[in-house]
C-alpha cells in the first residue's frame, strides 16, 4: 500500500502512524480522494477492515428455527448465516472447500444441508462436510487424503439484542467493547418495544449506487446535508405535514424548523469509529398524550421518566464500518467495487408495539426511503455525483473539518461535537486510518 501511494501521489507525505490518506493537524481534518476511488485502497480495506472488525450479518428474527438461513456478506466474502439444530447461529463462508463454488444461491430459506452443485459435496447446516461423492472410486481419494472438516466457519460470532455480528479475526475485542457508546443507542432504540425486541418482517429496500461505500457511512449521521439535499422534501412537509403519512418521522414543517430539530443535542464521534446523533425529546408529554399514549405510558413506566425522553428522542447511528440505525430501520451498505455500493434498508417492527404504530412507521419510511421515495434517492444521487467529481485529479483532499475546533475529546477517546459538527465522520476516518495503517506497517 505504502509504495502504491507514494508512487501515485508524491505530494502526500504520510505522517508517522498514518495511512497517508487521512490528514489531521491543528484546525484541519482532510481525507484524500484515493481513499474513495483507488482499487488498491479498496482491496486493502477488504482485508484490513472487513477481516478485522465485527461485521453485522443479520438479525435473529430472520432465522428463528433450526435450519433457517440467510445469505450475507463480510466485505467481498459471501457467507451463510444459519441456525443449527442445537440452536447455535453459525456463519459459514459460502464457498465449497473443494473447488470454490458457492453452495447456497438463495437469499433465505431452510436447509438441513447444503450441496455443492458442481461435484455434489454435501455439508450439514452447521458446515460439517458429510459426503464426498465417489470418494473411493478409481482415481478417487486415498487414505492419505487430508479431508477438510467442512465449510470455513467464521471464527467469531456474537449477538447484541438480536443483531448478529461476525468477525474473521479470532483475536478481535469483545463485541460489547467494540460497540462502546453505540450500545446505549441501540438499547434506547429497541427499548421502544415493550419487550425490548425488534423483528425483521418487512421486505427490505435494496438499491445500488455508483459511488464509494464510505459516502453512505458519512451520510447517515450528517445533519448538515438535510436542508439542502432534501429541500424538496421540506416543501412536501410544508404542504402536506402528516397527512401523507410522515408519522412524526421528520419533524418540522419548514426549513428553519427542520434545521432547529436537527441542530440540537449531541454529536458523538466514537473512538471505535462509530458516529451517533442523539437528543432527548423536547416534549415527552406529546407522546404520552397522543394517539399511542397507553403504549408510551407503559414504556415510560418501564424505563423511567428521564430515560423515556431519550427512548422517544433522536437516536441515529453509524456503526463502523457498514451498519446504520435511523428511524425504525437497520441499514447496511455493502462494498462491491470502489465505485459501486449496495444499500439494504431493513424496516423493523417493535415487538409488542400496537399494529397501527408499526404500520405507520413502515409507510412513513416507504415515503422517504423507497427507490421511488422522496428522500433516499437524492442521497444516493449525491454519492454518485461525489464519485464523479473525484474522477479528476486537480483537487486532492475532501474537507471533513466542520466543527473541528469545538469537538471535545473525552477520556475514553470519544469526541463530543457541537450540533452539525463532522465529529462522527472524523472518528470514522480515524478508525479507518488506524486499521489501514497497521496493515501497512505490519
Amino acid at each position, binding site marked *: 500500500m505504502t509504495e502504491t501511494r507514494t508512487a501515485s501521489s508524491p505530494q502526500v507525505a504520510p505522517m508517522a502512524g498514518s495511512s497517508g490518506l487521512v490528514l489531521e493537524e491543528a484546525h484541519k481534518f482532510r481525507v484524500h480522494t484515493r481513499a474513495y476511488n483507488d482499487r488498491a485502497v479498496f482491496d486493502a480495506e477488504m482485508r484490513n477492515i472487513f477481516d478485522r472488525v465485527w461485521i453485522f450479518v443479520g438479525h435473529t428474527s430472520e432465522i428463528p428455527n433450526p435450519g433457517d438461513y440467510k445469505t450475507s456478506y463480510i466485505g467481498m466474502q459471501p457467507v451463510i448465516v444459519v441456525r443449527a439444530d442445537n440452536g447455535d447461529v453459525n456463519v459459514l463462508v459460502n464457498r465449497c472447500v473443494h473447488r470454490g463454488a458457492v453452495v447456497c444461491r438463495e437469499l433465505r430459506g431452510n436447509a438441513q444441508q447444503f450441496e455443492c452443485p458442481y461435484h455434489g459435496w454435501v455439508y450439514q447446516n452447521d458446515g460439517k462436510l458429510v459426503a464426498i461423492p465417489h470418494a473411493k472410486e478409481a482415481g478417487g481419494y486415498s487414505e492419505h487424503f487430508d479431508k477438510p472438516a467442512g465449510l470455513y466457519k467464521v471464527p467469531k460470532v456474537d449477538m447484541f439484542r438480536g443483531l448478529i455480528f461476525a468477525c474473521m479475526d479470532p483475536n478481535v475485542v469483545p463485541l460489547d467493547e467494540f460497540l462502546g457508546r453505540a450500545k446505549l443507542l441501540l438499547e434506547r432504540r429497541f427499548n421502544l418495544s415493550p419487550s425490548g425486541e425488534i423483528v425483521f418482517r418487512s*421486505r427490505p429496500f435494496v438499491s445500488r449506487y455508483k459511488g464509494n461505500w464510505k459516502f453512505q457511512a458519512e451520510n447517515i449521521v450528517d445533519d448538515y446535508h438535510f436542508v439542502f439535499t432534501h429541500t*424538496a422534501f421540506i*416543501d412536501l412537509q410544508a404542504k402536506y405535514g402528516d*397527512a401523507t403519512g410522515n408519522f412524526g418521522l421528520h419533524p418540522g414543517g419548514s426549513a428553519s424548523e427542520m434545521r432547529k430539530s436537527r441542530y440540537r443535542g449531541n454529536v458523538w464521534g466514537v473512538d471505535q469509529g462509530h458516529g451517533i446523533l442523539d437528543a432527548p425529546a423536547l416534549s415527552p408529554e406529546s407522546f404520552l398524550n397522543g394517539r399511542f399514549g397507553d403504549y408510551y405510558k407503559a414504556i415510560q413506566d418501564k424505563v423511567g421518566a428521564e430515560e423515556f425522553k431519550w427512548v422517544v428522542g433522536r437516536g441515529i447511528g453509524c456503526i463502523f464500518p457498514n451498519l446504520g440505525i435511523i428511524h425504525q430501520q437497520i441499514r447496511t451498505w455493502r462494498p462491491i467495487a470502489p465505485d459501486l455500493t449496495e444499500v439494504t434498508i431493513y424496516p423493523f417492527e417493535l415487538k409488542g408495539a400496537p399494529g397501527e404504530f408499526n404500520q405507520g412507521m*413502515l*409507510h412513513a419510511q416507504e415515503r422517504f426511503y423507497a427507490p*421511488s421515495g*422522496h428522500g433516499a434517492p437524492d442521497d444516493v444521487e449525491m454519492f454518485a455525483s461525489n464519485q464523479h467529481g473525484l474522477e479528476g485529479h486537480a483537487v486532492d483532499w475532501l474537507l471533513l473539518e466542520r466543527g473541528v475546533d469545538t469537538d471535545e475529546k473525552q477520556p475514553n477517546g470519544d469526541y463530543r461535537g457541537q450540533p452539525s459538527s463532522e465529529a462522527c465522520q472524523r472518528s470514522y476516518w480515524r478508525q479507518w486510518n488506524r486499521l489501514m495503517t497497521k496493515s501497512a506497517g505490519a
Partner: protein
Amino acid sequence: MAGDMNFTRENAECFLIEEAEMLDELRLEEWLKLFTSDGLYWIPIDETMSTNETVSIVRDDALRREERVFHLLKTRFPAQSPRSRTLHSISSVRVRPKVDGQVVVVSNQTIHEVRTGDYRQSGLGEMHTIVARMEHLLVLSSDGPKIVEKKVLLLDRDMPLGNLTFLI
C-alpha cells in the same frame, strides 16, 4: 360502455396508450384524474405479503399520488435534476372481466428511461429499461373507465433497484 362484455381489448389498449402518453409527456395532473377517489397506485416488493407487514416501492392513495405529482412538477430535487425522459411500450394486453362493472386489464410494459443533462456525467444519459407486468383494475362508468388499482409488478421488484423517482 354499459357492461363488462363491451370492454374489448381495443378499448383496453386505447386506455393504456392514453395513460402512457400522459406519463411520458408529464401530463400528470390529467393522470391523477384517471383514478377513482379511493384508487391505489401500487408497486409492491412482495405482492404476496400484506402491505401492513411490508413496505412497497410505491403504495399511493389519492393524497400520496397528488403529493408525488406535486414533488415531480413543482419542486426541485437531485434525483430528478436533470429530469428523466420516459417512453412506455405496451404489449400483450388482455382483458379479464370481473363482476360489478369492473375489469382487470393485464399488460406487459417496457419503460425506457434516460436522464437528461450533461450525458458525460455519472447517471445521466444512460438508458435504463424497466420491465413490468401491470394489472389495471378498472371500474366502468358513464365517464369511461377509472382506475381502482394500478398494480405494477416489476420483474426485478425484490432485487437492487436504481432511481425510480418518476412515474411507471
